[in-house]
């Protein structure tokens, strides 16, 4: 360190000392003494207060201890002082204790207020808890109800599911059935279509063949026309010959007993069950299981029978056939539950009368040919109006009707024969649906034939096989002819036009003929017959000179004396 250095350091030191002496030293003693004096004053003040207090105490003691003097008083004073001191200390203690108590009281009040507030809080919480429990209970109840409803729902659901599955199963089975039925339906439809096609083919063929036949006829006529002379002669002779053909309705022609077959043919392709002459005797109709009706022209004088035309259109076997009184219509009952009408002129089916629910066994024109009566296996009779082409009345017979006749001689009456061995009489003049009377017969009725002039009814029965003659005026059986067998339930017996004879064809191929009045039997021998067996129907020509018979083996035979 250089002197220069020390010089400023010393300068600083000197200055500092100067400063201290100026600011500090001159005041130091003064202030110190002031401080001492200040402290002393404070102490003295305290002493004075204490002494004043003592003095006061002493003065009070002195006043209280007034009379007492001497050493005893002194002693007493001392004791009093002691006691006072103790009293003071006690008072202090008491005041202390009081203070403590007060503090404690304060604390207690504080704590009690705290307790109160806590109580309040607790009660609040309790109410809250109560509320919450209520809410909880409610919720639980809700849950229970919901669970119950859920259970119900689930059970309902399962039940519904079961039902659904059941229905599904049923639906499946029904569906399967439906499919089967549809298949069946398709098959049947195809079959029907096929059959229809066949039918159409057949019809076409028939029409063609008819056409060809007609052309042939025309050719023949042309040929005949080329030989005018001969034809004239022939026409003349025909005229001569044909004059006896006209039937005089009033005249009674003697009937013959057939002895010789002058015409026979295999008329149908199945068994023949229906046979009928027209009222004028010009035509003969046959019908059978081949569903075809054949109309034949009967040339009596020339002893010839020609086929006029086949009538197609029936759906099943022909059970009965009849001409109307002007040869306009041919009526036939069929096994396909229907009754049909053909017009003879063009050989076309005109009407189909449907309504029976079973085979129709017999169909007959009523007098005016405007109405038709039918008897059926469905145990009903029906009356049809041809103008309205509908059924106008249904009679409930209670048994299958095999044959019926319209007996205008007895008023407007229908006589029907039934399989329950009864003949029922229906009076159409009364609107009753019940038969006016019945007649019991021993055996199933297969056919009825009326001879109106003598009010006689012929009926053939099966089981107790016989022919019976019934007098309608007496309503009683007058005679019975037996000794033969019938091959079918619809075998037809017949009166001769003059009422002289009755005839029936037996299952043995023999035609049995009886004289109606005497009961004398005539048998047409088998050796002259073309029928081997099972004759179904036979009848006389309206003039009585010609007789016809058909059998189950397709044969038609026309007889003369």
């Amino acid at each position, binding site marked *: 360190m250089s002197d220069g250095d020390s010089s400023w350091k010393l300068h600083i030191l000197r200055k500092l000392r100067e400063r201290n002496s100026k600011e500090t030293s001159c005041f130091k003693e003064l202030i110190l003494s002031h401080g001492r004096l*200040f402290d002393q004053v404070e102490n003295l003040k305290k002493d004075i207060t204490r002494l004043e207090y003592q003095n006061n105490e002493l003065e009070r003691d002195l006043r209280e201890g007034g009379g007492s003097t001497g050493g005893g008083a002194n002693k007493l004073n001392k004791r009093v002082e002691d006691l006072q001191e103790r009293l003071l200390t006690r008072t202090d203690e008491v005041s202390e204790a009081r203070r403590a108590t007060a503090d404690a009281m304060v604390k207690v009040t504080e704590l009690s207020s705290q307790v109160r507030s806590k109580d309040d809080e607790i009660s609040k919480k309790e109410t809250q808890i109560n509320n919450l429990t209520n809410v909880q209970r409610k919720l639980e109840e809700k849950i229970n109800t919901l669970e119950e409803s859920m259970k119900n729902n689930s059970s309902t659901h399962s039940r519904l599911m079961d039902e659904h599955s059941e229905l599904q199963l049923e639906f499946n089975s029904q569906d399967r059935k439906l499919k089967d039925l549809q298949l069946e339906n398709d098959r049947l439809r195809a079959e029907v279509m096929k059959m229809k096609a066949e039918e159409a083919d057949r019809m076409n063929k028939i029409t063609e063949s008819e056409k060809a036949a007609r052309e042939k006829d025309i050719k023949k006529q042309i040929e005949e026309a080329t030989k005018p002379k001969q034809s004239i002669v022939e026409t003349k002779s025909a005229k001569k010959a044909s004059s006896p053909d006209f039937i005089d309705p009033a005249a009674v022609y003697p009937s013959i007993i057939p002895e010789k077959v002058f015409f026979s043919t295999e008329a149908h392709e199945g068994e023949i069950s229906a046979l009928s002459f027209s009222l004028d005797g010009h035509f003969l109709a046959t019908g059978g299981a081949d569903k075809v009706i054949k109309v034949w022209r009967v040339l009596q004088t020339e002893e010839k029978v020609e086929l006029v035309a086949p009538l197609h259109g029936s759906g099943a076997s022909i059970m009965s056939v009849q001409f109307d009184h002007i040869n306009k219509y041919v009526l036939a009952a069929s096994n396909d539950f229907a009754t049909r009408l053909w017009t003879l002129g063009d050989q076309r089916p005109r009407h189909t009368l449907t309504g029976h629910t079973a085979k129709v066994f017999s169909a007959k024109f009523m007098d005016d040919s405007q109405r038709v009566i039918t008897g059926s296996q469905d145990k009903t009779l029906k009356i049809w109006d041809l103008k309205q082409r509908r059924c106008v009345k249904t009679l409930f017979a209670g048994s299958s009707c095999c044959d019926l006749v319209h007996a205008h001689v007895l008023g407007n009456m229908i006589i029907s024969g039934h399989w329950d061995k009864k003949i029922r009489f229906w009076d159409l003049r009364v609107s009753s649906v019940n038969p006016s009377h019945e007649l019991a017969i021993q055996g199933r009725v297969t056919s009825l034939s009326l001879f109106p002039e003598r009010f006689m009814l012929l009926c053939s029965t099966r089981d107790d096989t016989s022919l019976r003659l019934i007098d309608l005026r007496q309503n009683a059986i007058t005679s019975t002819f037996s000794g033969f067998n019938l091959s079918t339930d619809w075998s037809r017996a017949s009166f001769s036009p003059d009422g002289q004879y009755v005839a029936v064809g037996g299952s043995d191929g023999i035609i049995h003929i009886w004289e109606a009045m005497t009961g004398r039997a005539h048998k047409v021998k088998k050796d002259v017959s073309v029928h081997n067996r099972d004759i179904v129907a036979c009848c006389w020509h309206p003039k009585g000179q010609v007789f016809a018979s058909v059998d189950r083996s397709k044969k038609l035979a026309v007889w003369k004396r």
Partner: protein
Amino acid sequence: MSDMDQRREVWDGKVPVSFILSQQELQQAGGTTIPEPVFMLLPRVSYFPLVYDKLVKLYARAVSASLDDKIWLSYGPSPLKWHYPVGILFDLFARSTELPWEITVHFKDYPTDDILIYEGKEALEGHFLSKLKEADWLKHGAKVIQQFTPSEFGKLWQSISQHHFEDFWSVNQKLMLNIKGEMEPFKFVPFSIYREGKRLYQGLIASQDTTFGDVMNLYQKEFPSASLADHQFLLHGIEIPAVAHLQWVSEHLSYPDNFLHIVLTRKT
């Protein structure tokens, strides 16, 4: 070492103070007996709050001050900042006054705009320690003070509050050396310059090869408009020669917070 003398003289420097209660507050409180003024010698390196307890004991009853009323001091109209050492306040305001320095004691109407709210002795200690750390940051990058233990901090503050020279320097000596305990020039010298009615100025100045005059020049350079011809730079109430080495001045003449608190004041 002779240089300890300067430290000793700095430490021993005290100012006589007479505390009187504010007459205004006394009248407001309805006090009849005027309390006696109290005379004290306060070390320049100490702080006023260290005698607050005594003052409160003497005067609080007279103005019936409550616990909420904070004590504060004023010289004339100027409130005295409690966190400044007594020496700075004396040099700033009372350089030319007659001694003893008369200071008024207040309990009401705390001037919150002018001085910090006094929160207790702990606040003062905190303020002192933060200044100490700031100084060491400037001197050694705060490395030395980071190694101080809590007990050393406690001893340092206790030595100030009890005004014990040996205890103080036994700890404070460490802050004069570097981290290895060697003599070494400080990075920067912590200083601040106070001027009445102006904001305090702190600048950066290295200690190596600088003098106290450099500090004055720095201030002149910073405030060129300030006419300093009739002014003097006072440290501990005295003018320091401009040639004094700054390093030495910092080591020997710093306040206990290790700052050179320089007051710029008009020459008398």
